[in-house]
Structure formats: structure tokens, C-alpha cells
């Protein structure tokens, strides 16, 4: 199975590179990057002291009164990231970043203002670059439906572009992402009067993709 994936990726890449190479090599002021990867972080365990505690379960004042204690753990989620920017100078490309990020069991769709730029003004085969973005993510598919609202995000990152020499390139990047969100849970209004969860996700991301 894995081999097919690799073959598919290989041919896919070759085709797109071949296509890019046949184009007229006039450097465009516009740069688009498409990247995909993972973002990793940790969650805290449930606090059994917060509510009455019975064995491995805590008693919650809601509909499903008992809930098992959830341990701390690592969480890895998918991230798809696109950037469309205008090159003011090679060191400063301003634009918009869009994508899909998965945190635990909830997806978010970030819309952020972003800047990218080449570091050290070096435009050789290997060009390191930085990226910085800040914006808002709207809640995507998640278990809480409309109860979950997105929030502010910011994300710094560093990457390496392997230039093809015609304005296209292969990218790898890594960085940090902070995403806020808020869940206003629906409550029965009798036993539970309100329940609000303010979330802030902190993740490391590792992505790879293309630039053209």
C-alpha cells in the first residue's frame, strides 16, 4: 500500500515539475505555496479533584453524569496550508494564508495575514525562509457543532526551499502555532446553568509542499 502512495507522489511531483519547467521562466511577483503536514502537541489529563470522583470516573453535573478520566497524551493532527503572496522584495512577501488544521477532534479553518521572506538574501538552490502569520480561524467540523467558535491564531515558522530555478520549488518547514477557540456548551438550564470552555492549542508543525 505504502509503495503505491510513494509511486503516486513521485509521479505526481515529476509531472508537476515537468509542467512547471516547460513554462516560460519569467519570475512572477506572485508566490503561492501549498504545504501539508502534521502538527503535534500534548493535552492535559482530566482533574479528578474538580468534581466528585468515583473510581475511574468523575461525576459531572450534566446529562451524562459520569465521565471517565482522560489521561494526558500526545495529539497529532493534519495540517494543510496555502499561502498566496505578493513579492515586495525577496525578503518580504505579503499575503494571505488559508488552510485546514486539526486539533484533537476539532478542525479549524484559519484565515490569516501572513508574511514570508527569504533569509540572508540568498537565492541559491537552497534558500531558507521565514514565515509569520496571524489571523482568525473559524471552526470546521467538530463534535460540538455550532457550540465551538474559532479564535485568534498566530504562527511563526522557518523553512527551506529547494529551488528548481524557474520560480518553483520544493519546501519543507517547521514552526509553532497557537490557536484559540471557545466552546459555549448547550446546557439543560436546570442542573447546569452555563458551561464555557476557553481553549488555547499550542502545536509544533512540520509541513512540506511546493512553491510556484
Amino acid at each position: 500500500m505504502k509503495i503505491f502512495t510513494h509511486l503516486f507522489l513521485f509521479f505526481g511531483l515529476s509531472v508537476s515539475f515537468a509542467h512547471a519547467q516547460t513554462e516560460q521562466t519569467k519570475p512572477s511577483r506572485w508566490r503561492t505555496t501549498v504545504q501539508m503536514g502534521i502538527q503535534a502537541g500534548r493535552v492535559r489529563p482530566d482533574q479528578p479533584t474538580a468534581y466528585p470522583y468515583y473510581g475511574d470516573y468523575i461525576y459531572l453535573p450534566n446529562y451524562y453524569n459520569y465521565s471517565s478520566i482522560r489521561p494526558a497524551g500526545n495529539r497529532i493532527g493534519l495540517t494543510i496550508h496555502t499561502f498566496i503572496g505578493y513579492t515586495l522584495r525577496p525578503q518580504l512577501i505579503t499575503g494571505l494564508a488559508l488552510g485546514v488544521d486539526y486539533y484533537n477532534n476539532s478542525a479549524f479553518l484559519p484565515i490569516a495575514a501572513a508574511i514570508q521572506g527569504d533569509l540572508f538574501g540568498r537565492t541559491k538552490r537552497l534558500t531558507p525562509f521565514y514565515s509569520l502569520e496571524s489571523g482568525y480561524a473559524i471552526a470546521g467540523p467538530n463534535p460540538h457543532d455550532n457550540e465551538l467558535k474559532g479564535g485568534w491564531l498566530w504562527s511563526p515558522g522557518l523553512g527551506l526551499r529547494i529551488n528548481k530555478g524557474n520560480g518553483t520549488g520544493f519546501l519543507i518547514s517547521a514552526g509553532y502555532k497557537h490557536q484559540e477557540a471557545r466552546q459555549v456548551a448547550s446546557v439543560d438550564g436546570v442542573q447546569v446553568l452555563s458551561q464555557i470552555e476557553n481553549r488555547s492549542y499550542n502545536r509544533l508543525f512540520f509541513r512540506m509542499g511546493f512553491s510556484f
Partner: protein
Amino acid sequence: MKAYILLLLLPLVYLTSCTDNCEQTRTYRKYTSVQLFISDIRQPISSAPPQSLVEPGKLYVKGQYLFIVEVKKGIHVFDNSNPANPRAISFLPIPGNVDIAVRDNILYADSYIDLVALDISNPTAIKEVNRTETGFTNGRVGRTYWSYDKQTMKIYDQREEIATETVKTDCEGTFNVLPYLVPIAWFGRYYESFAFADVAYNSVSAPTAPTTGTGGSMARFAITSNQLYVVNNSSLQLFDITDPATPVKGKTVNLNWNVETIFPYRTNLFIGTTTGMYIYDVVNPAEPKQLSAFSHVRSCDPVVVHENYAYVTLRGTSTCGVAGTQDVLDVVDISNLTAPRVAKSYPLETPYGLGIDYPTLFVCQGNKGLSVFDASNPLDLKVQQTFANVNAFDVIPLSKTLLTIGKDGLYQYDYSNPVALRLLSKIDARQPN
């Protein structure tokens, strides 16, 4: 080249802060268990200085005096000879008190398992004259439940309070609804274990019976002729009060449904339950005879009666009833007491207690206020006035003065003109939360 690798590793510095920070703030009703020795509860009761209302319960009017129950704490006594300016006289500390009724100069009040008779001939110095056991060893007050244990001679009660707690969570939420499992569950955890059980489970809590009064629709005490009728959850207890100062325990009638209210009208008792209404014949007051049981969907429902029509409010939402039940005001034709039937249903938001002074019908709507209807034709009720800014649970229409009680206190209105009620006075309740 080394420099790049270092740069790539730079984000790893953040690794220490890659843990999610989530805080859940939850406001909920917290129940703390309380144990009381019966000997402490049975201390003789006497008047204390007036106190401010905190959690007003039932309402009772006797002559110029006004009695407002402070739920499970006691009774506020007011001199209401001038409804525009009610004057606080005293406070009677009675633990576990919920219901009251007055015959002549004797006030009957429940105190957990006891029925206390108090002499109110001098309202400034009320004193206990008698105490008998009701025979009820458990009961529900609002959302709390109490029971008596004979072995330990203790009352086990609950204290309800609204608590707000903030806890750190794992950012994955707790679910009040079925979780969303596919297709993203792979990236997180499954929430199968508890959420699937009891999908339709609604937090079952006690029917609230907050207020009452003379002709109050939410009373659990009723007096006709020489009998005091006391209802608890599942039975009707009679007390002979031929001599008011010494109530004598009489017959017990078992009722199957969750009894909430009792309303005496002429020679009948109308008992409101969560699943319907019982009609009892009390031609012989000591021997109530069931005439009929009128059932409907499960909901909260006080009853008032005028002539051939009973007015029943059904509140499907919140503490009693099944979610999704409609909130309605039913007009029940009781011209044939053995076969009552619904003559007409009016949709009405969150109806609580109600009162009738023909041809005017008053219906409390909790937080939604109070509605005044023209009931000259019960089959065609017309709204005359609504008050949205009051909190009303029960009403007593009494010789052109309307007393309504709710969470925020007691309002008195002059309803000589039923189209334009005039606020006479208000006794404020100090909200605990």
C-alpha cells in the same frame, strides 16, 4: 549548513509550551448533603425579628395578615392591612417548612416530618401549641430531597446552591449531546462509552412547588370544613381540626401519581399531579372518595376551578415533565365530575400557578411574567394585559388585590380594573445568587 540546521531546530525551543491550555468554567447547581438531628428541629418555635426575603415560597393570606414561606427556613409574617404598604411583623424560624394553612387563630406548618400548630392570635408573639407527626418520612422541596431515618433520629437533607467552578481540561470538551465520531475521530479520541447510553435521559428532578396561598393554586395544604388535607408526593393525609389547636391524624389516601398541588372547591378536592388531575368528593370530609382521574402528558400542573371549568396549566419544560411537551393552559369541562374532558387548550409559555376571580383569570409565567385573561367565556379566553417584567410563580386574587409571588419578591396589584392593573407595593427578595 550547520546554521540552517540550527535554525530548523529553533522551533523546538517551543516544545516545552506545546501543551494545550484549556479552562472550562461551569455554573451549576451544587447539592451538599446536610444532616439535622430531629431533636434540634423540634425546638419550640416562637417569633423572631423580621428578616428579609431570600427564597420566597408559598403565600398565604388570612385576614389582614400575609404569610410568606421562606423555603425550608420559616415564615415571614406581614401586616397587610394597607396593601400599598405591607409591614413586616416577625419571622417564624421553622426548619423544613414549605407549606402553611390557617384555621381561625391556628397556623399549620410542616417542619420535615412534623405538622406544627402555631397560635397566631397575637401575630407579634406567635407560639407553638401543638406538634404531631405527619407520617411522611421523605419529601421533595424544589430540586432537593430529604428523608428521615428513625434509627439515627436524623433528617438527611440537601442544600442547593449555584456554584461556579473553573477547571483545566484536556481541550476536548465534555459532551451534552451525542459526539461526532466520523470522519475526524481518528485525529482525536472516541467518546463512545457514556454518551451513547441514555440518549433521551433528561435530568430527573423534583417538581417545583414554590408558592401557595388562600385559593393559591400551588398549595399542598388545604382546609375544608373540619379537615386539613396535606399531600406529599404519593399520598393524601387527613387531619381532623375540629379543635384547631390539636390536629388529629386521620385517614391516609394513597395516590399513585406524583402529587404536586391540592385545590379545594366546594365539596371537591382537585389534586394536581405531574401526570394528571384527581377529583375527590369530600361531602364526608373525613372520607374522601375518588370520583375520577384525569390524565394527560407528564408536566407540571396546578389547578384552579370555577363553576363547571377547571383551569390547568401544563408546563412541559424544565424541572418536571418530558422535554418537548408543550406549555399549555387547558380548560377542562368538569360539569360531569366523574368524566372530565378537555374543552379547550391555549398555548402559553412556561405557565406556573394561576388564580381566578371570575371573570378574570391570572396566570403566572415564571420569568416571562404574568398574564391577565378575561374568562367570562372559558372557551374563548382573551388576554387583557401582560406583565413581562415581573417574576411570578403563584397568584392570589383577593378582594380586588392581586398578590403575586416570584423569585424577586411579592407584588401587590389593584385589579379593580382588570384591563389596567395598578402596582400597589412590592416586597423585595434578596436574591441569594
